């Protein structure tokens, strides 16, 4: 074990870990809006819109994230889509996680008893008001948990953008293994950073979950 080397490479890895956090956070942020839009489209009154949303979700979930990344990054220019690696990582990550997240959101919304919706509507709430004041508060705890799981998957998936040469944690780790010939030390440090990131995400999820269930007796 080479402690000096580990101290030397820590700043490099911390910097790279920050890129991992950055790319995942942005993808999660945009993914949330894509997911919300997909949920809205899936419950649309026009059948073709519903089918389109379902087809999109099915295709995105049925193909590897890695292939989607390569398709957009290397194949994108052929359809006039030129993205720099970082943006490409965020965009593909967001569209990918959006499909998964829309399923999680739909599941959470459907888990709320349909009587709640009917009661609220018959009391004069509109569709949106019902969603906002009646359904969402009840669906939120489950939704937060499942989005938390997806956020962790997103962080781990972000290692794949190293293939399109974004200098994030896995890219840096691979480069350092190549230049220092000390794989164990580099692996331990970079694994530790992923673990710290993932536990931070879990902590945030737990905090939000407790806030969402503040007034609920379970």
């Amino acid at each position, binding site marked *: 074990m080479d402690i000096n080397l580990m101290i030397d490479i820590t700043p490099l890895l911390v910097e790279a870990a920050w890129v991992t956090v950055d790319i995942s956070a942005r993808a999660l942020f945009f993914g949330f809006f894509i997911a919300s839009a997909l949920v809205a489209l899936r419950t649309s009154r026009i059948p073709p819109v519903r089918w389109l949303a379902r087809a999109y979700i099915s*295709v995105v*979930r*049925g*193909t*590897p*994230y*890695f*292939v*989607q990344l*390569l*398709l957009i990054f*290397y*194949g*994108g220019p*052929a*359809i*006039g889509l030129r993205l720099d690696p970082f943006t490409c990582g965020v965009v593909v990550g967001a569209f990918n996680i959006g499909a998964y997240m829309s399923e999680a959101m739909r599941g959470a919304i459907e888990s709320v008893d349909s009587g709640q919706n009917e009661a609220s509507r018959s009391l004069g709430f509109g569709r949106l008001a019902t969603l906002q004041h009646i359904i969402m508060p009840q669906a939120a705890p489950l939704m937060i948990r499942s989005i938390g799981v997806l956020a962790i998957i997103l*962080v*781990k*998936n*972000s*290692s*794949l953008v*190293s*293939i399109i040469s974004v200098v994030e*944690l*896995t890219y840096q*780790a*691979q480069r350092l*293994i*190549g230049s220092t*010939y000390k*794989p*164990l030390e580099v*692996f331990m440090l*970079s*694994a530790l950073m*992923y*673990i710290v990131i*993932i536990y931070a995400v879990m902590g945030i999820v737990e905090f939000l979950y407790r806030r969402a269930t503040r007034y609920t007796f379970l």
Partner: protein
Amino acid sequence: MEFDFSPVIDYWPTLLQGVGVTLLIGVAVAVFSVIGGQIVAVITLYTRKVVNWPLRFFIWLFMTTPLLLQLYFLYFGIGEWILIPAIVVGVLGLGFHYMAYNADIFIATIKSVSSGQYEASRSLGFGHLRTLLYIIVPQAFYRALPQLSNNMIIMVKDISVLSAIGIGEMVYASQYAISVTFRPFEFYITIAAIYYLINLMMEAGQTWIERRAAYRS
């Protein structure tokens, strides 16, 4: 912006070979990770802390770090000390990764089999190991099947990542073809379509397995 799929047809044999490699790796990893996961789960639950804590640690480590990092460590890292062929690293890396996920599921389902089953079996004269082997594990296995098949569907998609360490599966095969024909869009969209097809078939299989599992348990 014009598409030309004729290179894809020209390189169809190469791609098909990649599909074959992908499927072979998928079967190997599925068998390895399910059987291994089951063994790891039983050992984790029924042995002393000296034995099961390291195992728990490895399950945790495999689940909290990305697959690609693990593959790089195994391929470039272990390669410093002993030389292993890429394909072995790939199958073992992917296998251990999903073994951890499967073990995690098995641990939960073994715990969910009621302790009354264990006691009844012991009082009927089965030994400890026989009880585990004939009574507990089969029940736990059927309960685990839905989540297990889910894991395997995710696993097949992760085989594409193995191209990063130079294993000749679909993506790697197409990368070779792309480097000659400069048609990335057409090739990657074909790969995506093949994966989607595999995925649809696996989902159909999953529905079938779940029906059978519901019948057995």
